[in-house]
């Protein structure tokens, strides 16, 4: 190849990862608009809305401000229109969405995350360094092509201005009707085992692109400081455990059958066609 052509190809190709965009495969916080039906907990939902866009929807609260935090830590305020705000990311996969406002007397910090198929920094930094106020955030989020799922243990941390809060009650609610009360450990962590509460037959219409149907969940915790109560929540989605409707044993049986077919080829000594 000629040097100029080679350099051109390298420069073109080197710029590609920054521009590459894959489909959004992470589970969006769905719940399909049922948020207010299955819980009264104040929360914010993030949902995909077309190519490289999402909407943030506060629910069960009066939101004063809506903020999106990109993985690089850059904050941006979002204007609310008709009860929702549009998010257009510049780079990076997971963006943290924060809705701040009130629910009754309580000051609310509601959080969620939305996934975009953009290259960029990982969300590790923003999850490990929570914003000011009472916050409830997961230790980590699912990767592309994966969801939180029933039976999975996920850790969340409750913090106030970045300081972990030990021994605090945390409520877990799912759109499938599960209610749990847990308590944070000495470092402010609470481990949630996402419940196996999906119905045997899901009557809902299929998700786009054959993705698994998911349901919403929300974690919440309250803190009474004496002046006014504070409430933090984190809402996201989880799917059923794939092994609920599949058998590793049968799969292994078919693999063993394949192995059995190959055994005569391995044991028989060289014949025609062999070197």
């Amino acid at each position: 190849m000629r040097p100029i052509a080679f350099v051109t190809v390298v420069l073109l190709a080197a710029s590609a990862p920054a521009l590459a965009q894959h489909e959004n495969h992470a589970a969006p916080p769905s719940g399909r608009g049922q948020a207010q039906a299955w819980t009264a907990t104040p929360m914010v939902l993030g949902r995909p809305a077309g190519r490289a866009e999402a909407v943030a929807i506060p629910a069960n609260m009066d939101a004063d401000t809506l903020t999106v935090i990109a993985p690089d830590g850059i904050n941006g305020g979002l204007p609310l229109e008709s009860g929702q705000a549009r998010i257009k990311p510049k780079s990076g996969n997971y963006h943290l969405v924060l809705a701040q406002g009130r629910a009754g007397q309580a000051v609310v910090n509601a959080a969620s995350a939305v996934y975009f198929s953009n290259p960029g920094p990982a969300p590790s930094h923003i999850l490990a360094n929570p914003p000011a106020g009472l916050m409830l955030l997961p230790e980590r989020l699912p990767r592309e092509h994966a969801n939180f799922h029933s039976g999975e243990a996920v850790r969340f941390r409750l913090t106030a201005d970045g300081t972990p809060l030990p021994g605090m009650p945390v409520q877990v609610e799912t759109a499938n009707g599960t209610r749990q009360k847990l308590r944070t450990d000495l470092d402010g962590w609470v481990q949630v085992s996402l419940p196996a509460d999906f119905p045997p037959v899901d009557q809902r219409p299929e998700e786009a692109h054959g993705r698994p149907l998911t349901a919403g969940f929300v974690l919440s915790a309250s803190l009474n400081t004496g002046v006014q109560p504070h409430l933090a929540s984190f809402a996201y989605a989880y799917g059923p455990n794939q092994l609920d409707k599949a058998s590793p044993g049968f799969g292994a049986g078919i693999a063993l059958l394949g192995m059995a077919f190959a055994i005569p080829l391995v044991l028989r000594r060289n014949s025609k066609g062999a070197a």
Partner: protein
Amino acid sequence: MSPFTMIRLRPWVQAISFVFLVWGAGVVGHYSADKISGAFPALSCAYDQENSAYCVLIPIQHQLHHRVGEALVKMQTITATVILPLLFTLLSFLAFFVVLNKAFCGWLCPLGTAQEALFAIGQRFDLAFRRVPAAWRPKVSTLKWLVLALAIFALPLISGMGALPHTFRDPWCQVCPSRVLTTLASGDVTQLALPLGGDVSQWVFVALRDLGFGFGAVFALSFRQPFCRICPMLALHALLRRVAPLHLAKKASARCDKCGLCSKACPMDIDAIHREHGPKAFTADCTLCGRCVAFCPEDGTLSLRLGPVPLVTSSAQSFARMTRKQSPEGKPKPVPKGSIKGTV
């Protein structure tokens, strides 16, 4: 570097690559696969949640299904927002590919590494050695192109247009043995599990995946690189192999007519290495493993080159060292009693 050293080095590179690509998220971070590229030129499975990079084949299939196919159905204008993601995926792939060319197959692919390890075990236990019969080789060589055309391009596009079930959105990934291998290696049995209901095509895909994985895992004890023969990644590499500087080079030599050891050493049974020279010797099936260079007894006839620069060149000395260790076909040679290991 001598060919002998290269052959000794390659298993180490393969082992490190296997660990990195199958379990690497624990080292480079949980989200690394989303970050590194999503367009890696080896079968690093996107369904393995512990890996560190995704294979390029899944975004190609999904972009054809989710974007191009659906856009065609909606009769929308095919705008830049539809086509550009696919182009950028291919360019991301190319950004990696130009570094190593098809050596991603021969040096980094986890599935290739596992197959080589199985073959080495099988030959160590003196199981049968099998090759593709010479008359079948051209036909077998075309299979990978059919798989690329159908499974990577045509079926996802047709599925995106609604003429096939959504399970055809990524038909290669549905049957790819690397999906079973790498997920099992990371302790996840979901990709092996057979659905107990639902879509029939999904059941058929998983059954084919498991059956193929089982068959190949045993067949690889006697037959070198069985899955590579039909791998669409090899075909995708082959499309672009001339644009990358790393390549196999062969000088014409009258002695080649009487030899043919290079072809016997080739794990892909490529006859052209023996019969051709110049660019024709570097065929679409080559994985740049370098075995042909190591088993060429003539100084300078075969070489791996980076552009014009020879990196590894065949030599009689390396040939002599190689043949003390194993036959060109990969059968290990017994170590004579009383000899010092590695010197005889």
